[in-house]
Each structure stands twice: as C-alpha cells, then as structure tokens.
C-alpha cells in the first residue's frame, strides 16, 4: 500500500506541475463564465474567442442581406471561416468576381471596408 501511495504521489507530483500552472487561469475563466460574463451574447463570446476577425464578420453580417454575395480579399483560412459564419450569404475570393454575375446583392470587402457593387 505504501509503495502504491508513493507511486501515485510521485506521478501526481510530476503531472501536478502542468496542472497547477493551468489551475489559476481555469479558475478565473470559470468565475467569469458563471458570474461576471454569464449574460454575454453569442457575439460577445465569439469576439472574446476569435478577436478582430469576428468583428469583420459582424460588420458584414449587420450590413448585408441574407442573400448577399460577398467578394473578399481576406486570406485562405479566413474565407472559409467567413463562409461558415456568414452562411447563408455566399463568400468568394476577389478574383472570382470576374466569373460571377454582379447584381444589387453583390458586395465587396476589401482593406477592411465593405461596399456595395
């Protein structure tokens, strides 16, 4: 039994190093979630989690209709995020604009600015 206790204690001690260093931020996050930030909206949570890239998404979402087609210069990874978060709007690369039909639902998002085509 003593051997078992020594074995487990030493294991927990080694693992403890990494656990304890994470405990403080986890505790703070939990307090935030159940108390200080419990009434945060979806957008507020996403802003906190994903930062400025989500602010761009919010801007586009607020200023475009659901059937909008948006041409954007944002990078590869972000365009996939934009396609998901702005659905059912369609999001294409800027270069695609030449191949698509432009109408009054078409928008362009370039250099962090949104304008209707």
């Amino acid at each position: 039994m003593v051997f078992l206790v020594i074995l487990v204690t030493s294991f927990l001690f080694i693992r403890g190093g990494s656990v304890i260093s994470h405990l403080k931020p986890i505790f703070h996050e939990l307090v935030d979630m159940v108390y200080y930030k419990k009434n945060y909206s979806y957008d507020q949570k996403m802003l906190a989690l994903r930062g400025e890239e989500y602010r761009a998404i919010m801007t586009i979402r607020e200023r475009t209709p659901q059937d909008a087609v948006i041409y954007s210069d944002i990078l590869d990874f972000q365009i996939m995020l934009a396609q998901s978060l702005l659905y059912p709007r369609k999001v294409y690369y800027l270069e695609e604009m030449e191949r698509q039909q432009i109408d009054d639902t078409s928008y362009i998002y370039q250099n962090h600015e949104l304008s209707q085509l």
Partner: protein
Amino acid sequence: MIIFIVLLVTVFIGVKLLEVLGFNVPWYEKLSLSFLLSSALQTLGYFTILRLGVMATNLTYLAFLCVLLLLVLVIPKFLPKLPMSPVMLASSSSSYLAKNGTKLLWLGIFVLFAITAIYTTYLPVYTTDSLILYDFRSKVITETGTLNSIRIVPDWAAYPMFTSTIHLFVRLLGYTNPNLFYPLMYLAFAGVFYGAVRIRLSQFKASLMTFLMYSTPLTLWQSKLDGMTNLPYAIFYCIAVIYLGKYWKNSKPIWQYAIISALFLGFASWTRHTEPFWAIPIFLIVVSSFFKRNLLLPGIYIAMFWFIRQIWPSYTHGNYISVVGATQSIVNNSNSLFTGTSYDLFDTFKIAVKFVLNSFNEGLSPLIYLYLSTITIELFWNSLKSQVFYIIVVLGNIFILFLSVVFAINTFSYWSGLSNSFTRMLSYLAPLLWLYISNSRIWYRIEEWGK
C-alpha cells in the same frame, strides 16, 4: 426539456439493444456503453435515411427515434432469448480507506466533468476546424433540410459525419450549442473504462486508474472542445480494443464481445475514416481465429466493421468527389513511404523518430514514462506473457504512428506544421496506455507485499 427526454430515450434504446444481444455487464458499464452505442447508431441510421431523400427536420428526427424505440421494444419478443455473457469482477476491500478513497476519486471525476460541462455549455462552437467543417455541415443541413447541400462546404468529404450528425440532432431540437455532448461522451467512456479495469482490480484501484485516465490532460482538454473528431475517435477505438481484449482473453469465444468490438471499430472509422489504426484489431481478430479455432466470428467481425467503414466512401464517391483523406491515406500510398523526394530514407527515419519522441513527450508525458517503467518491471519479473494482447495493441499503434509520420514527411511540404494535429491524434493512445498499466501483474505483486 426535450433534449433530456431524447437523451433518456437514447440511453434506453442502447440498454435494450445490449439486452437483445445478451450483453451482461454491471449497470455502470451498461449505461455508459448504451449511451455511446445508441448515439453512434442513431447518427448512422439518420444519415442513411437522409441519404434516401428524407428531409432533415425535427419531426423526421423524432419519428426516427420513435421507430427505433418501437423496434427495440417489439423485436425482442420475436427473438429467442440469447445466452448472457458472463460478468466478472475482482474482489474488493471493505476497509475504511478503500471505501472512502473510492468515493473521493469518483467525486474528483465528477468535479472534472462539471468543469468541462461549464466550459462547453457556456462557449459556442468556436474552433476553426469545427466552424469550417463539422458544425458548418450540420448548419447547412438544418437550413436546407437536405444532405446533399453539404457539398457547398469546402472539403465536405474530408471526414465522415459522426460529429456533424450529432450537431444536426441538437440543432433540429431547437438548440445551437451541441458542445455538452463531448464531456458526456467522455464521462460515459470513464464508465466503460472502469468496467474494463474492474475485472482485475478492486473498486479502489479501478477507481484510481479511471481517475488517472480521466484526468489525462490530452484527453480531458479535448472533452471541452466543440466537435473535433479526435476524442470521439479515441473513445470508439479504445472501446473496440477493450472488448476485443475481453474476447481474446476468454478461453471460450464470447461472441457478444466480438460484436460490440466490431461495431465500435466501425464507429471509429465513421468518425475519422483515414486513420489506419483499425489494422491492429483486424490483425488480432484474425490471429485469434487460429487459437480459438473459430473462423465464423472473425469473419462476421471483419464484415460488420467493413460495412460500417464503407458507408462514408460509398456516399462521397456517389457524388463524384473523392474522399480527400482516403486518397492520401497510408494504405493507398504505401509506396510513398520509401520514395521521398526531400530526404533520403535514413534522414527521413531520423527526423520521424525525433518528431514522434517530441510529440510523445509533449502530449503523453509523464504517462509514457510510467508505461515504460511498467514494461521494464514486467520484463524484469518475467510477466510480460499475460500482456501479449496489449503489447501488440500499443506497439502496433506506435509503429503505425511512426509510419504515418514518415509518410507525412515524404508527402506534405507542410508536414512540420502538423505537430499539433499529431499530438491531438495521440489522445487515443492515452487510455490504451492506462489499460496496459491497469492490467499489469504489478498490482498483484503490490497486494502480495501488503499482506
């Protein structure tokens, strides 16, 4: 409210299915297994009916659930009662320390569960992989009602639909946050793991090993994520190994264990199709057919697994889009292992060894050292024989992991950027290493010393 009813019905369907199979295990293992079995079967079943053209709505999902419920209630009345699988449990100490220690350890598990549950109920789906693929597919199906609409999602065919279908169920029931499913899944796995180690260990020791497994940072951290497929894969794969181990170790071929193992190995493929680790259980079931002198059961095992595995590629090929991962899989490209262009073979192996060791150190330390110590002590005591099954499982998997790295080095220019994904993938090894340690003869020696 409706989500709790659906959850209860899900568990009930699982319990009834296990009863139909004559699967006799303690209540905690039965409940845990029922939840996982029923959830996975529901995703497969609902995916199949959507494929047949049924619209995805809350009504069709609830009707599907009712039909399942009816089937598990009616069908057993027409079936002969099957012989039950045996229940095996090690004796337990009734000492004050053991009893209260067990309670304390389970309290620890529930506290960890509560922490991950708070995270998942508060946080929306936010990880990049989930937003751009897993959750996005469920969002598109909910909006359009059709399965084929997922083709607008970039790389839609890269992974099967297990997590996306779970998200779809939650969305169809009127909720937008499906994240709590993952801590529940992990807690259920703790129940199955406890059942597996309880066969050889007392209540206290089995609880201790379950607590250590549950608190492994690599897997615990993933249970608070939102639809990533690594943890469900790890859970399904490990359950397949656990019941294959039970099948292997029993002198009689207990078919219930083989069937459950085959189903869960199939579910693992239904979660991540490209992982080649299914080769180890298939190898072991084939080997078992020789010493158990039973060819039928391994045949059924392979057929069941393969049937579930083929569900996703049969859909993606039907839409004339190749499965991205499958064409890149190690099985389909074994020649690229030895035909690297960037490095010669020796250099590739050297780099791969370094990469694997670093990832092990990062993701599985100090567990990997505890595992190596256990193996060394067993070697010294000459008791490795009893661990043949888990030695093949662990070493076989490490070997495949190593080959995967060699393959990645030779195939992807961006392979070194995959270290995070690789470390995350290692999560399926953690419960296997804990299983190995739990099954070790060391525990008996410790008990003998204590007497």
